[in-house]
């Protein structure tokens, strides 16, 4: 982590940037991780390749370079927003992005023909190129023989056989990169496209500054796709007119695109005749046999349900010892701070504010890490695509496709990478609808909220043979978000986002053993992000809430209790504790927070909440984990039960002014349902705004989710009371 902080301070000027490009599922991310390790910086949020990832690499001759991991792409003719980013970066069209000096393209040796398509395009964009031939072991096991030197000869660029997951061939790869970057060797490749196309492209490029011949050729060929529209928008109406005229002169529009594919594959097949021996292209692999079961409509769906249930059960059961450890650690720190700080506002802020608040959030780190462990494993082993296949059936009736599945599943970790992962969806209406329901998926920030209330109020007993009631409740809460998302998506696709059903095409990669480094990196990044959030946003919110709950200090109350204590001098410790608790309670009642809380009490009372829950929920609108921190602070100020500092005990013993317990099962459920549905995350709303470029979508998300949350919490509480769970 120290390495990363240092990186941020070092200026990145004058250093070569090498882009890592390749088809999806070629082991590109594994190679990127193997080359850059902990030196990589991922925007602010975790995600596989949806976010801009840069890492450092030191080469023998070329010195330190930046390696930029671009989203996987099958072709430079971009069809989804995700591919658009990759192509724009390569063409030097991204704002605030340093120009790319060289390209490292990763090929899947067991899928060589398809992998070579994008190489054929990359050879013509005037950038130095190095080819990493990955997964040779898989190819070999299938009896495929590849002559790498011959491939290199044909392409005119270095081809380095590697095994990214076993870290084999990386030194040779670095050596080749170093040579190519240092000398700036551009492949001297003869284009497979007709000379006349290049002449036309050059004619267009000459007229506009910033338009290279390669770029002009791309837009000339690509008709109406994401990339072409984007470029046309950027260079203005005159450019659009010229382009249109040129296209009319050359040929009918789509013919060029088809012709390009034909010409490239003709050349690829010529090369492969020399380079590749594949005795049995349609052989049945182990993956195929596994898929007969795992994509089976019945057995596959059942397996999927079992995997998900197992994940949720593990989050609860495996994390316990680690969480107890963190709890004990914060207990010790709190005790030490109480002892070494003078009594007063500072001590209260550190102990009741920071330690009780932030500690209450950090304790959930193990659960977050376990969740990401499973997501990373499922993603890396290739199962996610099968899940998307099975889910297409369920998503089509909502007006979405299987492509929405991976963004939605990522949203169970965090809606931010989830919203960004929608870039893989080609259709813009599907994409917006997916973004709008993504925050309904129970993200990891909700986990602390569920965990604290389930732990405190749901009985720990077995139902359904081996499955605990607590795990089952957690599973049910995850389902609430999903069940609400279905009609929301359906209504959106019927009204604001009405459109044709969009095609669904997804590659099913071969299953593989997940790479330890890739999984570890994912857990590390998400854990770090969680801790950073706890140390910044949550910390700030906690201190503000502490101040509101601590001030103003009432002289009258203090004087009153001081007199009481003098009067009762010599009374038992029990009586004195009781007195201290009453004083703290009265102080809290008259604090700023107490006064605000009483003002909003009529709004939250129908949900079964007292003013303290109401205030904690209100304070959690910037980030939902705040509720745990705020409850920690409120209860640690309001109670003086020094024996057990844990929030769970404080919640269990909280009472209304008439002595009734505040919390019972319906109240706990009502809070959890509220948090399951409410849009309490400023960062998610901001990322929806950024991705859609319009304010109306985040506003709509906020309004519909908050309204549904209130209704959901109300119904849950009333139903719970009627059923006699109170």
């Amino acid at each position, binding site marked *: 982590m120290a390495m990363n902080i240092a990186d941020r301070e070092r200026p990145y000027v004058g250093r070569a940037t090498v882009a890592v490009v390749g088809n999806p599922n070629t082991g590109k991310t594994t190679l990127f991780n193997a080359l850059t390790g902990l030196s990589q910086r991922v925007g602010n949020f975790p995600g596989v390749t949806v976010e801009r990832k840069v890492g450092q690499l030191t080469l023998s001759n070329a010195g330190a370079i930046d390696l930029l991991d671009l989203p996987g792409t*099958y*072709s430079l*003719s971009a*069809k989804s927003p995700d591919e658009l980013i990759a192509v724009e970066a390569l063409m030097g069209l991204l704002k605030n992005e340093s120009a790319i000096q060289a390209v490292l393209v990763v090929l899947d040796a*067991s*899928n*060589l*023909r*398809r992998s070579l*398509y994008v190489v054929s395009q990359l050879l013509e964009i005037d950038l130095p190129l190095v080819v990493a031939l990955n997964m040779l072991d898989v190819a070999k096991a299938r009896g495929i023989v590849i002559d790498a030197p011959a491939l290199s000869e044909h392409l005119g660029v270095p081809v380095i056989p590697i095994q990214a997951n076993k870290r084999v061939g990386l030194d040779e790869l670095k050596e080749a990169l170093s040579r190519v970057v240092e000398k700036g060797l551009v492949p001297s490749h003869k284009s497979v496209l007709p000379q006349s196309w290049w002449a036309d492209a050059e004619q267009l490029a000459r007229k506009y500054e910033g338009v290279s011949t390669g770029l002009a050729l791309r837009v000339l060929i690509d008709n109406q*796709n994401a990339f072409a529209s984007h470029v046309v928008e950027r260079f203005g109406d005159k450019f659009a007119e010229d382009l249109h005229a040129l296209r009319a002169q050359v040929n009918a529009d*789509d013919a060029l*695109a*088809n012709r390009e*594919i*034909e010409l490239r*594959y003709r050349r690829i097949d010529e090369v492969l005749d020399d380079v590749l021996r*594949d005795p049995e*292209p*349609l052989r049945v692999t182990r*993956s*195929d046999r596994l*898929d007969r079961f795992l*994509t089976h*409509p019945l057995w596959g769906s059942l397996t999927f349900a079992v995997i998900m249930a197992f994940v949720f059960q593990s989050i609860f059961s495996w994390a316990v010892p680690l969480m107890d450890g963190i709890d004990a650690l914060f207990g010790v720190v709190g005790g030490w701070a109480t002892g070494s700080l003078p009594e007063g506002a500072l001590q209260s802020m550190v102990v009741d504010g920071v330690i009780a608040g932030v500690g209450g959030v950090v304790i959930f780190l193990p659960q977050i890490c376990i969740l990401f462990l499973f997501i990373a494993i499922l993603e890396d082993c290739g199962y996610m*695509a099968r899940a*998307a*296949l099975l889910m*297409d*059936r369920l998503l*089509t009736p909502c007006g979405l496709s*299987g492509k929405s599945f991976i963004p939605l599943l990522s949203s169970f970790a965090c809606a931010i990478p989830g919203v960004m992962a929608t870039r893989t969806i*080609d259709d813009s209406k599907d994409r917006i609808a997916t973004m709008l329901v993504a925050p309904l998926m129970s993200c990891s920030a909700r986990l602390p909220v569920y965990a604290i209330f389930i732990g405190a109020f749901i009985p720990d007993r077995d139902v359904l043979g081996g499955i605990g009631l607590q795990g089952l409740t957690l599973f049910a809460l995850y389902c609430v978000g999903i069940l609400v998302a279905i009609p929301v998506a359906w209504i959106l696709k019927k009204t604001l986002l009405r459109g044709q059903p969009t*095609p*669904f*095409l*997804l*590659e*099913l990669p071969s299953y593989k053993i997940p790479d330890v480094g890739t999984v570890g990196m994912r857990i590390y990044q998400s854990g770090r992000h969680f801790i950073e959030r706890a140390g910044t946003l949550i910390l700030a919110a906690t201190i503000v809430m502490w101040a509101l709950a601590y001030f103003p200090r009432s002289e009258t109350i203090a004087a009153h209790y001081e007199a009481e204590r003098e009067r009762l001098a010599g009374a038992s410790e029990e009586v004195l504790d009781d007195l201290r608790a009453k004083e703290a309670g009265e102080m809290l009642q008259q604090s700023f927070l107490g006064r605000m809380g009483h003002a909003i009490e009529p709004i939250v009372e129908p949900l079964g909440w007292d003013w303290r829950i109401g205030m904690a929920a209100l304070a959690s609108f910037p980030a939902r984990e705040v509720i745990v921190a705020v409850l920690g602070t409120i209860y640690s100020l309001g109670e003086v039960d020094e024996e057990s500092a844990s929030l769970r005990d404080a919640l269990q013993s909280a009472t209304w002014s008439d002595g009734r317990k505040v919390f019972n099962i319906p109240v706990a459920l009502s809070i959890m349902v509220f948090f399951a549905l409410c849009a309490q995350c400023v960062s998610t709303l901001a990322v929806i705004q950024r991705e859609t470029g319009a304010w109306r979508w985040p506003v709509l998300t906020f309004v519909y989710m908050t309204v549904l949350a209130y209704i959901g919490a109300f119904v849950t509480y009333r139903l719970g009371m009627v059923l006699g769970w109170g």
Partner: protein
Amino acid sequence: MAYATDAVTPLSIWSRGDEGTIEGISGANQLAARLREVGAMPGVPVRVLRVGRTVVIQVGSSRFCLRKTDAACIKGMKAA
């Protein structure tokens, strides 16, 4: 593009395990373009691995899933 011969059929009506070669992709939409780009070109070996609402086809050495209705745009000739 017209396919007069009886032997050329859309992949959407093939059964699981059927093998053959691709004869062509019809249509000018993005799906058809993407299928071509990933190598679904005439002459390439093809096999159907899963049938139903969502089908899985093997094109060369890659496997793709797509809806049955979309798979209708891929025409192939079944091996005897």
